[in-house]
């Protein structure tokens, strides 16, 4: 019942493209292997906003992202996406997720990998080549698209993962340590890509222990209550 009411409430701030997307977590709790990592977590991220999840190792950053991605059930509380629209079946379906692994097959070429995720993500067959070229260009991998993925360096692999965010549109980006093994130049480029995504009305939830180069962003710190309060 509650989410319904809120949706109406926020419906007043709808833009002309429709209602404003908003990810709302209430009293969220997460546990791993029976150990409670966090509980009573509440936050909301609206379109155009970024939420940084920080905290020490093992504080549950990855767990929180996997709960949002629908890969783990929350131990308590609820998670809603307001104004999700008909296009996406669930929060997970409306999200891009970059985990610790790159989700690319070493035996396939960079282009074959991206082409697969693009088609699997529901992009039509037309205009494909162009958009993959654009995505590769945006992450600085243009020209080596026909190399097997296994030939790439760790940083290049990570950038290929970032290119995956661009080949199919998803409003919500869930990024788990996205800048690991990126050099400073790539980090800056990635910062620009994230700002563009936010400018387009996208949402970002990123777990990181490094500062991401985002303009305005909110931050929640997991595992902090023991130290702070």
């Amino acid at each position: 019942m509650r989410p319904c009411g809120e949706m109406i409430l926020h419906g007043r701030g709808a833009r002309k493209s429709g209602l404003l997307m908003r990810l709302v977590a209430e009293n969220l709790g997460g546990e791993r292997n029976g150990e409670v990592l966090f509980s009573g977590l509440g936050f909301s991220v609206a379109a155009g906003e970024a939420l940084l999840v920080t905290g020490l190792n093992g504080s549950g950053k990855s767990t929180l992202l996997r709960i949002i991605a629908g890969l783990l059930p929350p131990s308590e509380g609820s998670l809603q996406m307001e104004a999700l629209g008909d296009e996406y079946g669930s929060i997970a379906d409306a999200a891009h997720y970059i985990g610790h692994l790159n989700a690319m097959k070493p035996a396939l070429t960079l282009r074959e990998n991206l082409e697969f995720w693009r088609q699997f993500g529901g992009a039509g067959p037309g205009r494909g080549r162009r958009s993959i070229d654009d995505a590769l260009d945006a992450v600085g991998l243009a020209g080596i698209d026909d190399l097997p993925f296994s030939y790439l360096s760790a940083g290049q692999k990570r950038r290929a993962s970032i290119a995956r965010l661009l080949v199919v549109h998803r409003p919500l980006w869930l990024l788990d340590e996205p800048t690991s093994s990126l050099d400073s130049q790539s980090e800056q480029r990635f910062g620009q890509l994230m700002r563009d995504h936010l400018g387009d009305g996208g949402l970002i939830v990123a777990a990181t222990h490094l500062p991401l180069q985002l303009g305005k962003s909110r931050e929640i710190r997991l595992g902090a209550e023991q130290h702070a309060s």
Partner: protein
Amino acid sequence: MMALFVRDVRLGLRAGGGALVAVLFFLAVIAIVPFAVGPDLKLLARIGGAMLWIGALLASLLGLDRLFQADRDDGSLDLLIMADRHLLPVTVLVKCLAHWFVSVLPLVLAAPLLGLFMNMEPKAIGATTLTLLVGTPAITFIGAVGAAVAVALPRGGLLVSIIILPLTIPVLIFGVSAAYGAMDASAAFLPPFLILAAITLFFAVLGPIASAAALRGSAD
């Protein structure tokens, strides 16, 4: 979905060569039989159909444990599960079909040749190959459940085989009895063959649904 099929077929054919290993295992198993039972051609002809079924069954179990594990190891599995626009059981079904196409279909194609080695009659060879063609998908679908359950285990291969083998017994029973039905005038071919087809269709539905449930539960 076609993209997933194409990707898995491509992966199966490229580096690693799961298809070749399975066929080779099949050949080797059949080559061992005459040494075990003696090179009596009449005896070989009589047990040929059953031996082909056992060989194909064991060979088709070989690569099954990697069905989901390979995707889990590189993180693809998370994204496959997340894509709610495709029903997860359908995704699993497509993966099973791709696996069957690359790793099991070559076994079916090799079966007539091995039938000659077992001194079987042309009619018996044809019947056995047909039952393999219809029956082996069921093994893959059952195997997918085992593969999904054992996906998080580092050495799941043997465990998958142990879990699956008892479940495949019905497939084996009706496959072999249909193959014998074609050879022997006193036994019928069609009834067991139709039951075999029904088993395959049944597991084509149940297998992916059960595996999808197991995969959702396995995420951590």
